[in-house]
């Protein structure tokens, strides 16, 4: 039974995506998209943890479910379902609806699938599927802004994928197995951990790898930004949890970097975010900021393996909390733009205040619970970092509050424009938005059962390391290069990289051509000249006499030489038989 459900969870969205190839089925697919994540949801809620392996797929794949992935799967599926439910409304009358829904479903397949994947190959495949399919969501509007965002997005995705490729490759070889479970148990080298963290951090949007996130989330259509920000971003977190040997081995250098980045991210993203004018961009930066908090948890786990059992549920909880809240905010922001009646607007605003408050960490919300849990869990980790982290977490509440206020303000001033068709009938949007809001509010109650496992442990301090400084310099350099690339434009930048080669090639070509031309000219002239000379001197005739003399001379010389050597002339070949 659970086998069938495992398959169905991945196959349902994929089958629908393939169906869009048939023009006749496209309207139906748009209608049915909402049921695509339901098998996954059912799996998450009903099925027991299990594994299923197919050795013939790719290079041997295993899909399955464990207790951590169940939670991820649950909120991911919920979010996708909600987004899909609104997608039909948002895409009504859009000429690019088919492309959108195809990319949407493919990304959904990837996102659900990667949570189920239990081996490196299928995980990487589905992760890539999700990332690349999302490109279609980002550039959906086909405006300059969307294209710019898309270019940035894809550049980071490619970089992230490459890092993952290398990281997974190294990790599977070090672990001697391609199963993620084995990866988690193995003592991975620093390099492979760096690569894996790098690859996943891109998705997670931790500074300085966040550049793509706010524009992409801002440019994508409302349902897409909801899943981008709510579900897909968590794939980064999930990836780290699924592949890194957290809780077994300490990686202090990485941890330092991660903690530092997390701290920077929380506040820098807020500072930038409050200057944004579009509500969706503000939400995007808020996502970045929130992921900074998650990064703190990860960093602490990397530093102190013993703290990880306490940190893991917190991280998962934070992810779920942020997914639901952010999803509700994005969808709600879209809905807000679609309605014009003042009363309705006020109601929506009020409803959205709930998840916003949760994000800001208001008392009794999931946000507050999460932060408290995190603080508790962090105490198990590094003593050196603890005060800073605690202060940062407290301050982050203020920062997020600011950001949420900014969100409310910008939303009221300039809600994201909704197409006419949506504006005419916003009814289809209500249920998903309110559903997410409700779920977000109810999360703490559902959760209290899980998050109660924090234990303390002592962690020995390590002397400071130059690595963070080097990392900082590298980051700064990368930022400079990136700024330059942005300034001159991507294609021009690539052109400049390629320029020396092109020039060199051109120069060699030109030189070759010149040489060839000269040669041709000379080669044309010489034979003519020689022919004329030969004719005027009757060289052919003279050559006869010359040759006779030459042969005789050479022959005599040889005879003389042989006689001098005292050897009789030798006939090379034996006589023909008589």
């Amino acid at each position: 039974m659970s086998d069938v459900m495992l398959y169905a969870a991945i196959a349902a969205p994929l089958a629908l995506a393939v169906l869009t190839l048939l023009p006749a089925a496209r309207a139906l697919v748009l209608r049915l998209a909402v049921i695509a994540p339901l098998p996954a949801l059912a799996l998450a809620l009903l099925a027991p943890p299990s594994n299923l392996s197919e050795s013939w797929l790719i290079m041997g794949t295993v899909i399955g479910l464990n207790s951590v992935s169940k939670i991820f799967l649950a909120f991911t599926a919920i979010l996708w379902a909600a987004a899909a439910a609104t997608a039909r409304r948002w895409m009504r009358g859009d000429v690019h609806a088919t492309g959108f829904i195809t990319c949407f479903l493919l990304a959904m397949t990837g996102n659900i699938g990667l949570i189920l994947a239990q081996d490196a190959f299928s995980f990487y495949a589905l992760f890539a599927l999700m990332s690349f399919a999302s490109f279609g969501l980002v550039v959906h509007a086909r405006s300059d802004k969307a294209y710019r965002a898309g270019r940035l997005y894809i550049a980071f995705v490619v970089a992230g994928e490459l890092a993952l490729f290398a990281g997974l490759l190294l990790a599977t070889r070090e672990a001697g197995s391609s199963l993620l479970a084995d990866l988690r148990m193995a003592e991975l080298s620093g390099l492979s951990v760096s690569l894996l963290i790098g690859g996943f951090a891109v998705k997670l949007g931790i500074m300085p790898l966040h550049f793509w996130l706010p524009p992409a989330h801002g440019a994508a259509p409302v349902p897409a930004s909801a899943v981008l920000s709510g579900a897909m971003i968590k794939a980064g977190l999930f990836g780290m949890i699924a592949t890194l040997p957290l809780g077994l081995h300490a990686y202090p250098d990485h941890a330092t970097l991660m903690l530092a980045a997390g701290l920077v991210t929380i506040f820098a993203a807020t500072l930038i975010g409050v200057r944004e004018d579009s509500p969706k961009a503000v939400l995007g930066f808020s996502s970045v900021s929130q992921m900074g908090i998650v990064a703190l948890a990860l960093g602490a786990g990397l530093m102190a393996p013993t703290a990880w059992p306490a940190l893991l549920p917190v991280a998962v909880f934070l992810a779920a909390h942020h997914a639901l809240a952010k999803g509700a905010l994005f969808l709600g922001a879209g809905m807000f733009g679609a309605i014009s009646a003042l009363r309705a607007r006020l109601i929506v605003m009020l409803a959205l205040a709930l998840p916003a408050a949760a994000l800001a960490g208001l008392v009794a919300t999931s946000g507050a619970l999460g932060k408290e849990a995190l603080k508790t869990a962090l105490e198990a980790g590094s003593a050196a970092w603890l005060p800073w982290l605690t202060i940062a977490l407290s301050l982050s509440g203020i920062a997020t509050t600011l950001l949420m206020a900014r969100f409310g303000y910008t939303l009221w001033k300039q809600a994201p424009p909704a197409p006419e068709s949506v504006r005419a009938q916003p009814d289809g949007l209500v249920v998903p938005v309110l559903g997410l809001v409700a779920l977000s509010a109810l999360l703490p109650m559902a959760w209290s059962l899980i998050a109660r496992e924090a234990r303390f442990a002592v962690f020995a301090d390590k002397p400071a390391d130059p690595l963070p400084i080097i990392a900082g310099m590298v980051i700064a350099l990368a930022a400079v290069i990136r700024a330059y690339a942005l300034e001159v434009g991507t294609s021009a930048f690539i052109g400049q990289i390629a320029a020396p080669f092109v020039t060199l090639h051109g120069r060699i070509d030109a030189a070759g051509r010149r040489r060839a031309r000269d040669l041709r000219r000379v080669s044309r002239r010489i034979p003519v000249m020689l022919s004329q000379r030969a004719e005027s001197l009757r060289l052919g005739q003279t050559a006869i006499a010359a040759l006779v003399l030459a042969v005789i001379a050479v022959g005599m010389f040889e005879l003389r030489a042989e006689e001098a050597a005292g050897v009789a002339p030798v006939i090379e070949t034996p006589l023909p038989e008589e």
Partner: protein
Amino acid sequence: MTEIVSLDWLALTVFVPLLGAVLSFLVPRIAPQIGLMTLALAGLCVTMLALQVIPGGPVIVALGGWGAPLGLDLRADGLAIIMLGMNVLVGGFVSLGALDTFSARHAGEESARMRRYFWPLWLLLLCGLNGAYLSTDIFNLYVMIEVIALAAIGLTVLTGRLDAMRAGLEYMFASMLGALLFLMAVGLAYLQAGRLDFAGLAVHAGEPAMMLAFALMLVGLALKTALFPLHFWLPNAHASASAPASALLSGLVLKASLYILLRFWVEIFGPGERIGMLVGAMGTGAIIWGSVQALRTQRLKLLVAWSTVAQIGLICVAFALAGTIGAQTAWQGAVLLMVAHAVAKAAMFLAAGRIAQETGHDRIADLDRSHLRPTLAQFAFALAAISLIGLPPSAGFAGKWLLMEGAMRAGAWIWVVVAMAGTLFSVAYLSRPLIGFLRFDRAPDPVGEHHGWAIADAPPLMLAVIAVISGLVAVQIIGVISIGAPFGAVP
């Protein structure tokens, strides 16, 4: 191993063509029939001879009772069989091609004269060629090369046009001079040795007078073979003759003197390494100069003729390897190259003739401006080119392979490089007309495939196909060549 058979195929191989020549001269009305019949008979003779030689070893016949030491011995070993086979094969197909070229369809006095004289001349030529391959004494050879020369000059001037006449006269002078140098050498050799047969002369090899004789002979034969720098007469003579005549001149006639030179080199004189180097250097010169001229020339037939100069040069590289450890292999390669060149060059000249016939000109630059593309003839030309370039599986490839192998075994890399250069050159000049065949955007009207097909395309096509696939039986050919160990025992 040697048998002496009284009335036998050996003598008939020489006399049947002679008889045919006389008959076709006397009864011009049925000359083509006589010609074909003669070739068929000659083919039979060669086949029977081959059947005798291949299992039984070399065959010797003393003509009219004049045996060695005085001469008039005819001897057929494997090498001779191959050369005779080449004569009959190439000659047969060229004769078929000539049926069309000289058919009664083409009206006019000129055509009538060509029809009248082609067959007697060609059969006489065949007689001379066969005789040359079978002779074992040098005076007999002198007579044969004179017969060949006279018949060849006749074929050259057959069209009766002024340019052909002039070229023919030039050829005549070169040929006579070559023959006289040869005759002088015969005299000197006899003076020294008192004998004319190969074996008798070989005893005296290395004596100063023999060296003088050898020098004269080498130059005389080089002149007849058109080995650079003594090639000056060849291009015009070969290019201005009619297509079948050119095919015979280029394919068969040159090979006779080359063959004689090879025999002398191996069986009589065995000159030293330096003279070999000299000939090799001449061959290199031929490759370069012939190729350069072929690259420059504006007319298709001249291109083919210049390519002959270059190809002869390549074959002569083998002489540079004489006396080394790779000699055996190199000689085999040289013989294969001779055969390959005969077949391919005959095909190429016939094809060039057909192309000129269909398009009305043979200017290389204008080949692509015509919407008339005699596809089959062009195809035959291309196939022949493949063999001349030496691409597998042609006999040209096999020959080149062995030649280069010989050079490599001898450690003489310079000749490997020369052979490679020759190959590249041949690609360069032979691709000129091919590009003309294959370019379509300059033709005034749409070019259709399968244009200009005629039964007359069959002979060049067959020859070209033989040239291309015969490399697959190279080992058999070499097996035949080795009968009687013409290049000495296998080391």
